[in-house]
């Protein structure tokens, strides 16, 4: 794969298409543990990682049972939302609850498996509203870097393999949402989305949005 090169915002600015928005959406629930959860090599690595992560906080991991690999969730979502023959320029993965693979550069991997070999990265650790910031970034890169065919992936799992010692809200079920943004193809009416309107924790607002897109 060759490098993507970007100019800074002013130099690369292109006029925003007035109808850039959500062209397609998919939403999936993941009630079963991921395949990675059954991998004993991964489990041993995860136990060490978590034990060392938690020790400075006086915490210890629970026995690890199940859990979700965001890579597996995201690959299923990509397959559900990116039409055959289409390419993606930019992929942003957003979540709050950590991945079953806490040291993995999952978004980098997704850039490899997603059609178009998009620039991909992750936005996390924003108290449940990382996806709203991810959407702002998606729009900013679409306008200033010409990465207009953009995929937002919002994933959250229902499991945290430790008691963090502070209040924490976890989803009732592991879910993921994929929103494919772009300029309209003939016959399409992309849905404009205001990041401020989705700045609520979790996948809830994105799940509802995906439902609205599917119903159009």
């Amino acid at each position, binding site marked *: 794969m060759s490098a993507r090169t970007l100019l800074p915002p002013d130099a690369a600015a292109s006029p925003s298409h007035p109808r850039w928005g959500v062209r397609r959406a998919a939403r999936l629930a993941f009630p079963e543990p991921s395949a990675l959860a059954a991998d004993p090599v991964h489990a041993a690595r995860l136990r060490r990682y978590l034990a060392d*992560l938690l020790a400075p906080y006086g915490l210890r991991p629970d026995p690890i049972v199940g859990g979700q690999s965001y890579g597996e969730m995201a690959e299923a979502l990509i397959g559900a939302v990116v039409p055959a023959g289409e390419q993606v320029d930019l992929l942003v993965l957003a979540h709050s609850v950590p991945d079953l693979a806490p040291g993995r550069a999952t*978004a*980098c991997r997704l850039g490899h498996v997603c059609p178009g070999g998009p620039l991909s990265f992750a936005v996390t*650790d924003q108290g449940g509203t990382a996806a709203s910031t991810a959407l702002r970034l998606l729009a900013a890169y679409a306008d200033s870097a010409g990465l207009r065919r953009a995929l937002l992936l919002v994933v959250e799992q229902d499991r945290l393999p430790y008691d963090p010692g502070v209040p924490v809200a976890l989803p009732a079920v592991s879910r993921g949402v994929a929103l494919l943004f772009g300029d309209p193809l003939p016959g399409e009416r992309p849905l404009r989305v205001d990041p401020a309107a989705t700045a609520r924790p979790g996948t809830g607002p994105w799940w509802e949005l995906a439902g609205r897109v599917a119903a159009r």
Partner: protein
Amino acid sequence: MTSLLAVSDHVPSGRVPVEVLGEELGLTPMQVRIFRRYHGLGEVSRDEGGSLLDLLRGAAAGLVALRGREHLVRYVLHARSFPTVVPYPHDPVRELCAELGLDAGVPVFSVGHHACASGLLAIDAAGRLLAADGDPDALALVLAGEKAFTPEAAAVPGSSFFGEGAGACLVSASGGRDRVLAYAVDLRGEFDTVADRPELESEFQRIYGEALAAVVRAAVERAGLSLERVTAVLPHNVNRVAWHQVCRVLGYPRERVVLEHVPTVGHVFCADHFLNHRTARQRGLLRPGEPYVMAAAGAGRGATFAAMVLQH
């Protein structure tokens, strides 16, 4: 145009020799000798008993330009080498923002999955967010730095040892200092499972120098420049031999690559560029109006090669 209003870094005073680290990580004496003699690593920085908040606080304290401008900060980004570095939902970056007197409503988040190249991503992302908002006075605070809290975050197998430290910069969409001219990134997700597949490890080592050189060349060309005009390269501190190889591929003089901290500090996650920025300034390698390059390869589970051209 994205620019860096100010840059700072913090390196704690503690040091651990690679021989001690090697023993802790189960390396053989021969492997450790290779690290010291071939890769040029001697000791790495450690903040024994200190936290991530302590490291980031140290870097932020050096941002004199932030004082009196706290109300202008619209975004705070933590550039991550490792995606998960504290127990969820603990948030030391937000704690730091409160200490600094930033607006409680400012988005505070992490960007990453480019491993140790995530610092360049954070600068680029911050600049685009600010430009989209359109407020010429607005700023973003970019932070980098992590704890070497577990073996996976203590060493890059066969390449380097991580040092603890931090860096910070204030990003503006309209400033005139250290302006970003171009950014290039090459994601190599095919190396995702490199830790479990020795044949991929060999392939990664084989392409490393060429891939890193290629992304430097791509960024310089996109900036409309030739490499001869680049006054300095601010590298990631992975080791000396990797950068000597990149210099050979590029035909770039190795004395203009800031490698001073490899033997005494180690590879400070995404913060190497901030540390090396200070050193390049002190050495007179950054001259007003002249371009320089910050570049990194992020390796681990997934690989990223990235370079950014800036004008001092």
